[in-house]
């Protein structure tokens, strides 16, 4: 599909198979968002596999490229990236409502796609479910304890402490710390990674508004995110004031990688997602 009033966006619809019955409200339409600047196939073709498997459970699934990503041209309407992403989601839902009659949507995204999905759901009441894979999250006091426990299981770490070579320990003792060798640009983050919510109060308000609207949440964290998330219930500890009740499906997959490149982990994620989608009334 090529659509959009402000910028021509490009997306691919995978029709529900079997097709839903004509009577009744029908299943929500699932919309997959870009992970960073990886185009709409997703890392390791994750979004293609997600779309086909979820469509086989009776959901229309749409994956598209934000303006300036993949096969959608850069926007020319002057909106900044943060606002532009939200416009793109709204235009996409409008288009799917106009052409297919969908009025309820489930939005899914990995990494920045998760954060953008959360932001979009806050603003658009047609979104009844949000699936977040490795969204932005704050560390907790227990995170540091869990990280320390994990480190102490490492012989290299214990050796660095005992021989005073550990950089953190050296800083604390006022000793010199060897400079790191210059990097190769791996830390460079394109702008699209920087348009999301970054602070806990803002994310809290967003999540609270979703809970108030009875939006269903699927939140999962992988082992690749262990530098900020390292135990099953950390998400609940970060947002203790929010009563998610039975609308939150939270999981921690310590053995999985960020992009679910391993076939087994990917299969389990998709199985869990299809089950979760099927339970949304």
């Amino acid at each position, binding site marked *: 599909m090529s659509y959009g009033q402000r910028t*021509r966006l490009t997306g*691919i619809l995978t029709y529900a198979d079997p097709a839903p019955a004509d009577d009744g409200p029908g299943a929500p339409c699932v919309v997959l968002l870009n992970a*960073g*600047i990886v185009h709409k196939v997703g*890392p390791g*073709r994750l979004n293609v596999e997600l779309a086909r498997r979820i469509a086989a459970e009776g959901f229309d699934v749409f994956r598209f490229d934000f303006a300036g990503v993949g096969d959608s041209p850069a926007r020319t309407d002057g909106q900044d990236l943060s606002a532009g992403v939200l416009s793109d989601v709204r235009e996409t839902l409008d288009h799917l409502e106009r052409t297919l009659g969908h009025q309820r949507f489930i939005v899914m995204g990995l*990494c920045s796609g998760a954060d953008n999905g959360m932001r979009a759901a806050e603003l658009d009441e047609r979104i009844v479910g949000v699936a977040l894979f490795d969204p932005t999250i704050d560390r907790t006091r227990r995170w540091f304890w869990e990280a320390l426990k994990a480190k102490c299981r490492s012989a290299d770490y214990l050796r660095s402490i005992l021989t005073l070579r550990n950089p953190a320990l050296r800083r604390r003792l006022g000793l010199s710390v060897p400079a790191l060798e210059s990097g190769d640009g791996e830390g*460079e983050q394109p702008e699209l990674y920087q348009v999301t919510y970054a602070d806990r109060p803002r994310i809290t308000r967003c999540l609270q508004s979703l809970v108030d609207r009875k939006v269903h949440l699927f939140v999962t964290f992988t082992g690749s995110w262990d530098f900020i998330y390292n135990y099953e219930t950390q998400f609940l500890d970060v947002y203790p004031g929010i009563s998610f009740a039975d609308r939150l499906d939270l999981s921690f997959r310590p053995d999985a990688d960020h992009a679910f490149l391993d*076939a087994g982990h*990917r299969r389990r994620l998709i199985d869990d997602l299809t089950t979760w989608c099927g339970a949304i009334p």
Partner: protein
Amino acid sequence: MIPLLFGPEARRKYGVFQPAIGQGSKGRGVVICDGLFDEAVCAHRALRFAAGSMAEARWSSLRFDYFGTGDSSGDTGDFTLAGALADAHDAVDELKASAGLASVYLLGLRLGGALAAQVAATRDDVRGLLLWDPLIEGEEVLARYDVSGPADESAMIEGFSLSPGLQDELRGLSVERTLAAYAGPLLMICTAANDGHRRLAAGHSHIDFREIEAPEAWSNTALGGMRPIPSAVVNELREWPG
């Protein structure tokens, strides 16, 4: 950019047709053959940029995904070199029809270079070949992903499946052998030239070989596709053959 589906019903491919910009003559057409696995994901931005830039120089283009890859039909395990070769032939026919051209050029990046060379060697409606960091031997793919064992089990590469059959096909792939049957115009641009590229250029006087200092469009980073776009390469492509 005009997204489209093409090819036989049983092997539908996703492609993006980029018409040449400008009035007057129809200009030239180029079919863009991508690399494979994570290299294709990483190179997507660069190839989109190349297609857009070449359109300004009066090139129409068709980028596409092989069956079983990207946005095309088929599962990852369905990808074979023989199938991808047939897909590239389909893409040539599609571009000729879409742009109203009698002949086209082929641009191949990495593995796509090897496939483009095979297509060019067997058709008389290919005007020239542009190779961008081409693989010289299929074994390079296996070495890059450290697949060294017997081809009796599937290997997983960055979420993609490298079946035993595909491993066998890669072991038999040689651009050098293919180019023995192609004597047409040929530009080979390398941002990461190796001995194989230099040997190939030395052995074929019709190859216009250029080594260019630019980022590797296809090499992996954290989530893929984040390398700077190698505009120096694109400038050479759009102006060739001059």
